[in-house]
C-alpha cells in the first residue's frame, strides 16, 4: 500500500518537475539559426570555392601541377613584344597570355594544395560555399578574362610572330649563305 501511494506520488511529482523544465525551456532563446537569412561565421581557415585573380596570374601552371585530381586546366601562349600583358601586383612583368584557365569545381576536393605553390598568390579559397547548379557543365569555371576571339587572336598573333621570326631567320640564313657563297667565289677568284 505504501509502495502504491509512493508510486502515485512519484509519478505526479516527477510529471510536474518535467513540465516545469519544458515550461522554462519555452522562454529560453532558441538556438536555431535561420540559415539562408542568417549564416554562421565560418572558421578562419575554411576551404570553399576556389577563385583566381587573373590580374595577378602569370600562367606558370604550378597550381595545375599541384592539383591531385587534375581539376585545373591551363593553356598559355607567349606574348609578342608589342603586347602589353601588364604587371602582377608584386611587380613582375607577365610574359604569357593565359588562354585557358578552367577549374572543374565538381572535381575539386578542396585540399588547397593549389594555393601554396602560386608565386603571385592569385589562386585562393573564398568563403562562398553555396554554388549548386542544375547543369553539371556549369561547374566548369572559366576564369580567363579574355574573350574567345581575343584568345584566338593571341594564338594567331604568336603564330604569326613565330612565322615571321622563322621567316626572318630563314632569310638571314639565306643571306648569310649567299654572302658565304659570294665570299667563296671571291676566294676562288683570288686563288685563280
Amino acid at each position, binding site marked *: 500500500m505504501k509502495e502504491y501511494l509512493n*508510486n*502515485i506520488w512519484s509519478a*505526479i511529482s516527477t*510529471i510536474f518537475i*518535467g*513540465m516545469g*523544465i*519544458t*515550461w522554462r*525551456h*519555452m*522562454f*529560453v*532563446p*532558441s*538556438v*536555431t539559426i*535561420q540559415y539562408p537569412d542568417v549564416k554562421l561565421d565560418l572558421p578562419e581557415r575554411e576551404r570553399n570555392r576556389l577563385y583566381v585573380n587573373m590580374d595577378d596570374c602569370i600562367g606558370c601552371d604550378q597550381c595545375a601541377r599541384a592539383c591531385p585530381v587534375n581539376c585545373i586546366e591551363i593553356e598559355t601562349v607567349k606574348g609578342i613584344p608589342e603586347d602589353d600583358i601588364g604587371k602582377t601586383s608584386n611587380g613582375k612583368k607577365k610574359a604569357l597570355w593565359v588562354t585557358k584557365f578552367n577549374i572543374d569545381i565538381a572535381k575539386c576536393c578542396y585540399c588547397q594544395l593549389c594555393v601554396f605553390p602560386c608565386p603571385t598568390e592569385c589562386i585562393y579559397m573564398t568563403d562562398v560555399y553555396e554554388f549548386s547548379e542544375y547543369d553539371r557543365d556549369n561547374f566548369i569555371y572559366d576564369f580567363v578574362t579574355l574573350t574567345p576571339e581575343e584568345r584566338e587572336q593571341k594564338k594567331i598573333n604568336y603564330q604569326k610572330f613565330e612565322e615571321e621570326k622563322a621567316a626572318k631567320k630563314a632569310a638571314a640564313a639565306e643571306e648569310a649563305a649567299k654572302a658565304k657563297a659570294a665570299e667563296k667565289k671571291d676566294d676562288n677568284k683570288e686563288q685563280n
Partner: protein
Amino acid sequence: MIYEFFSNLFNNQVIGYIISAALPLLFFILPFVLVAVYMERKVSAHMQDRLGPMRVGWHGVLQTIADLLKLLQKEDITATANDKPLFNLAPIVVFAGSYAAFAAIPFTGAYIGSNIDLGIIYIIGATGLVVAGILMSGWASNNKYTLLGAMRAAAQIISYEIPTILVVLSLIMITGTMNLNTMSQMQTGYFWNWMILGGPGLGVTKFLLIPFMIIGFFVIYISTLAEVNRTPFDIPEAESELVSGYHTEYSGMKFSIFFLAEYANMFAVSAIVATLFFGGYQSPFGYLGNTLGAHWLVPIEQFFWFAIKGTFFVFVQMWLRWTLPRLRVDQLMAVCWKYLIPIAFVNLIIVGLITIL
C-alpha cells in the same frame, strides 16, 4: 436549440438540420484545427529551444494552410490488398465519432447543437464510434503495423473509458444532471462556483468536495488524454514502433481527415473537462455585457471563455506531449487498471457519501 432556431428561420427541417450540423465544423473545428496544428508545432519547437515554422507568413502563421493545400493535392493511394469499402469508410467513421461529440457541447449559453438531457453520456457513447473507425482502418489497411496499432487503440480507449465514466458519474451525482448546458449554468457567477472548487453553494460539502474534485480532475484529464491517443499514451500511433499506427496506409485527404479527427477530439475532451470542472462557458469574473447592460455581449464573452478554457487544456495536452516519453503497453494498462480505476472508484464512493450529507 440551434436546430430549432434554423428550422424556424427557414421553415424547413432539412435545412435546419444541415445548417446546425455544419456550423461547428465550418466555424469552429476547421479554424481551431488550423490554429491548433500551428500551436502544436510552435509549442513543441519552443520547448525544444527551436523556432518551428518561420517561413510561411509572419512567424509561419500560414504554415498550416500551406500544409492543407499540400495534403489536398496528394494522391489518394489505395493499395490493392486493402479492403476498399472499409478502408474508405474508416476515416469518415472516426471523424463522425469525434464530431458527434460537438452536438452536445455547449459553446455558449445561446449555442448548443442539441440540448439533450443525456448530454455527457451521449458524448461518451458517440465517441465510442472512434474505436470502431480505428479498428476498421487498421483491419482494412491489411498491414501488420496498422493492425497492431488498431488493436492497441481499441484496448486503450475501451480501458480508459472506465475511469472517465467513473469521474463523470461522480459529477452527475453532485449536479444531478447529465445535461452539459445545465451543468454549465449551475457553475455561473464567479470562479469559486466551478466544480473544481466544490461547485455552487456555500456549505460544508463544498469544502469537503474540493480535494476529491481535484483528484477527479486529474483522473479524468489523464484518462481523456489516453482516449484521444496523445503522448504519453500514443501507443496506437507510436511512430518509433509502428510507423504511424492505424493510419500508416492512408494518404492525402483521408489522412487529413484522421488528423482533423484527432485535433477535433483533443478539443472535445478539453471542452468536456472544462465544462465538467471549470465552469464550461462561464466567465470567472462575471460578464462585461451584464455590467454594461448590453446583454447581446454575454454569449460572445461566453464563447470567448469557452474557447480560452478549451484551448488552454489543449495546450496542456501539448505540453505533456513534449514533456513525457511514451508508455509501454503494460505500463499503460497498469496506469489504467491499477491506478486510475481504483482511485476513480474510491473517489466516486467518497463523493457519493459527501453528497448524501
